[in-house]
């Protein structure tokens, strides 16, 4: 049963067609990779799934439910979490505060004014646990702005994880990371496999091919190729383009 | 329907005047991607400067003053129209120099800075001229009224609208037909490119800002007899300027002019029904436009949306 399903999604901004036709379905528990050249529309597709952009045509379904036209926060509350290609952390907050604000337990109390947050040990513990799972257990009290780049990337993912999502959408999580940082991320995501449904946009082929169950290639606003990593390696088109350039 | 005619005409006149007011604001937003909140107070300063030149105590050296005061009103008015805005332009230089530190950073700095500059200028106006209302004297030739179609029309408004139209046309010509204008357009489009072409970007910015200031001050003198002169008159200039840009889109010259006419007509017509509250309709219009449609009628994606 597909958790995320996109059918005939077409997105047009004024006179420019960004997504021609996207048909994609991701079953529950799958780690689905999305790759393609820059400008192909991959991030726009994420924007469509998370409700930031409303498609001109087409349907989006989450666990069978039609989420077309729902606002971003409504979709997030249905269990969709996302990380961003250009990092958007709460820079003034500490790592712990960044994560805490994503926790469902905290979100439920969003309009509470009577008690102070600082006194709540339970939330702090939960946040710290999530941070530990991404390797930031030592840096819970560091201000996000002051963390090194690799840690900030990990924090992005921690925040998304803290939402306890059903679907995790990662937009170029290894962007800007060196070999070590990327490897760390691969380990982290590898550990999440099977526990959640994950959709990853990536340029790093090694990353995708080693982790993904299936991959969709998006080019010119359409899915031009789809399959398991092995199938794609055989794919003529992928071979000919620079996309599959490694074993 | 004919009862509405004077209001329609009034609206058109007001529209042209709004276009004049918005002109300088637009150029600055276009080239420098800065919302100049000081635009309103520079507009006001222009009016006060004009007042000072035409009045009994012009800011001239003593020997010139006696000669100046002997000139007929028409001459003094015409000369003031030219000299006063230039003096205000000097103030514009000061503002632009302060703004330099904010370039390259987010537009917010420019906004807060020009906001501060606006308050400083307004306070300066209060200190020098006090808070009472003033009236700007205009030459007999353009004041008074005339009859047409059994209605009384204000001569000054037509003169003002005509001047506004002429200046708008001249500015358009400058932008389209001169090399300076071409550089401004290029700079608005891509400042890096302009710099790569060897053009001194900071001198360009300064000159455009000063030009925008001069236009604002000029508009102030033209509008003064219609709106009266008070220290706070600047607000009624900067809000329509912003409204015009939002409606007409940043970067579209004639879009802004069309938007100005629309705004003027809206206010003119609302004056037909509730004249005391007609300026209010400008604010209501801004609320409505920003609520429902922020892109503008003609413009491309604007700096306001970053």
């Amino acid at each position, binding site marked *: 049963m597909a958790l995320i399903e996109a059918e005939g999604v077409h997105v047009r901004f004024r006179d420019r067609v960004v997504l021609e036709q996207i048909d994609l379905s991701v079953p529950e528990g799958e780690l689905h990779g999305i790759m393609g050249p820059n400008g192909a529309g991959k991030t726009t597709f994420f924007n469509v799934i998370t409700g*930031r952009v409303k498609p001109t045509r087409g349907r989006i379904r989450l666990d069978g439910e039609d989420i077309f036209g729902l606002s971003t*926060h409504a979709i*997030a509350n249905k269990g969709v979490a*996302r990380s961003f290609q250009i990092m*958007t*952390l*709460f*820079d*003034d*907050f*500490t790592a*712990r*505060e960044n994560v*805490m*604000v*994503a926790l469902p337990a*905290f*979100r439920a*109390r*969003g*309009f*509470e*004014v*009577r*008690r*102070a*947050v*600082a006194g709540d040990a339970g939330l702090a513990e939960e946040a710290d646990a999530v941070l530990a799972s991404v390797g930031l257990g030592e840096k819970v*009290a560091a201000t996000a*702005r002051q963390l090194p780049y690799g840690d900030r990337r990990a924090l992005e993912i921690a*925040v998304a994880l803290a*939402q306890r999502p059903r679907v995790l959408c990662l937009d170029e999580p290894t962007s800007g990371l060196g070999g070590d940082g990327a490897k760390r991320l691969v380990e982290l995501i590898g550990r999440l496999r099977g526990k959640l449904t994950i959709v990853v946009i990536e340029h790093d082929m090694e990353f995708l091919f080693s982790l993904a169950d299936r991959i969709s290639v998006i080019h010119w606003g359409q899915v031009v190729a789809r399959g398991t990593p092995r199938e794609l390696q055989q794919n003529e088109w992928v071979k000919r383009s620079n996309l599959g350039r490694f074993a | 329907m004919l009862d509405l005619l004077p209001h329609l005409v009034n609206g058109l006149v007001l529209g042209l005047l709004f276009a004049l007011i918005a002109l300088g604001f637009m150029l600055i937003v276009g080239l420098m991607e800065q919302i100049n909140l000081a635009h309103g107070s520079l507009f006001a300063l222009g009016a006060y400067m004009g007042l000072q030149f035409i009045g009994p105590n012009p800011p001239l050296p003593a020997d010139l003053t006696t000669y100046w005061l002997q000139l007929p009103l028409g001459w003094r008015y015409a000369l003031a129209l030219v000299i006063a805005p230039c003096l205000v332009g000097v103030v514009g230089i000061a503002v632009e120099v*302060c703004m330099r530190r*904010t370039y390259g*950073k*987010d*537009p*917010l*700095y420019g*906004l*807060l*800075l020009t*906001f*501060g500059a606006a*308050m*400083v200028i*307004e*306070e300066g106006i209060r*200190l020098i001229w006090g808070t009472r209302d003033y009236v700007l004297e205009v030459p007999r030739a353009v004041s008074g009224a005339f009859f047409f179609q059994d209605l009384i029309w204000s001569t000054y408004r037509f003169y003002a609208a005509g001047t506004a139209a002429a200046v708008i046309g001249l500015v358009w010509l400058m932008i389209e037909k001169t090399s300076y204008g071409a550089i401004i357009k290029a700079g608005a489009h891509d400042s890096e490119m302009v710099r790569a072409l060897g053009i001194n970007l900071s001198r360009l910015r300064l000159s455009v800002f000063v030009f925008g200031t001069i236009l604002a001050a000029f508009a102030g003198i033209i509008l003064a007899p219609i709106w009266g002169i008070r220290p*706070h008159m600047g*607000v009624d200039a900067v809000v329509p300027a*912003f409204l015009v840009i939002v409606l007409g889109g940043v970067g579209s010259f004639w879009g802004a002019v069309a938007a100005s006419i629309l705004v003027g007509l809206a206010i003119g017509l609302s004056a037909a029904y509730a004249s005391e509250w007609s300026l*209010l309709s400008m*604010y209501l219009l801004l*609320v409505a436009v*920003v*609520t429902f449609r922020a892109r503008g009628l003609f413009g491309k994606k604007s700096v*306001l*949306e*970053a």
Partner: protein
Amino acid sequence: MTAASSTSPDAARLVTPTMLVLWLALATVPLWIAQAGLYPYLGVEILIWSIYALAFNLVLGTAGLPSFGHGAYFGVGAYAFGLCQFNLSPNLWVSLAAATIAALVAGILVALFISHRRGIYYAFMTIAFAQIFWTIAIKAYDLTGGEDGLLRIERPPADFGIISFDLRGNVALFYFVLAVFVLAVVGLWRLVHSPYGRVLAAIRQSEMRASHLGYPVWLYKASVFAISAALCGLAGALFAMAQHSAFPDVMNLTQSGYVVMMVLVGGGLVNFWGPVIGVAVFLLTRDVIGAFTNSWMLWFGLLFVLVVLFRPEGIAGLVKSSFERHSLRGQGLSALRLIFRSG
């Protein structure tokens, strides 16, 4: 960021040591203010404007929303107090409540229109609405007295049933306003450090991120604006009571601009107490420097420009960073940047 760091014990407290010291110090003011060459009414003014500025900073400093027309709600409160007193009931509590509610309603109305925006559009919308309210105040002569304002507003006694205080003297009024100030400070401090305040701070830093986390950003922005407006209205009511009058002046953009300047100069962008500091500096400048020269406001405006250019963390930020190793300039700068980002 106006919340104290969450690792600081103050963040969890209802009443902090700083507050106690401040209140104690303020409580002694009427005893020595005459000797300092000033006068008790100045104390009243400082407190009232402090409530106003703290309430305003909820919107600017905590939520990161640029409201340039906040004077409107202060003014609505002032007029509502007077009108209630003349037409409804002379009772102090009723009039204060009426003022707060009137300002709340005004705030909700405006919030409905502006909360889906931020940045420059938001700023201009607040200006437009302020002008709308101001125009109504000036033109609706029958209701508001127009330019002449509402005059002869009385200071009703503070009647607690068993005991009643006459507020007609400035010292008595000072202590009454101090009591309101204490309540306001406690409430605002708790609000800023509550989950709600935390979400507001998140929204200030990244609306996009906050909405992707599942927060209905619009609702938060609208509610904080309404709350702020209500509290500003209360301050306005106190002002009307103190001045015995309500004029359209308080709603004009210049006055709204003053509170923006006070908050920034005082350091409201990085510290909870910034607005209070800014108010004190402003009013002291007015009285002390204003005694020598008429151009004191000009100097304050220039100070504001300098602060924006060079030290956006303001006085509070400067003082705080002299105690800590790193400068708060980065925080001040990023606070400014976030307020005007249109994303």
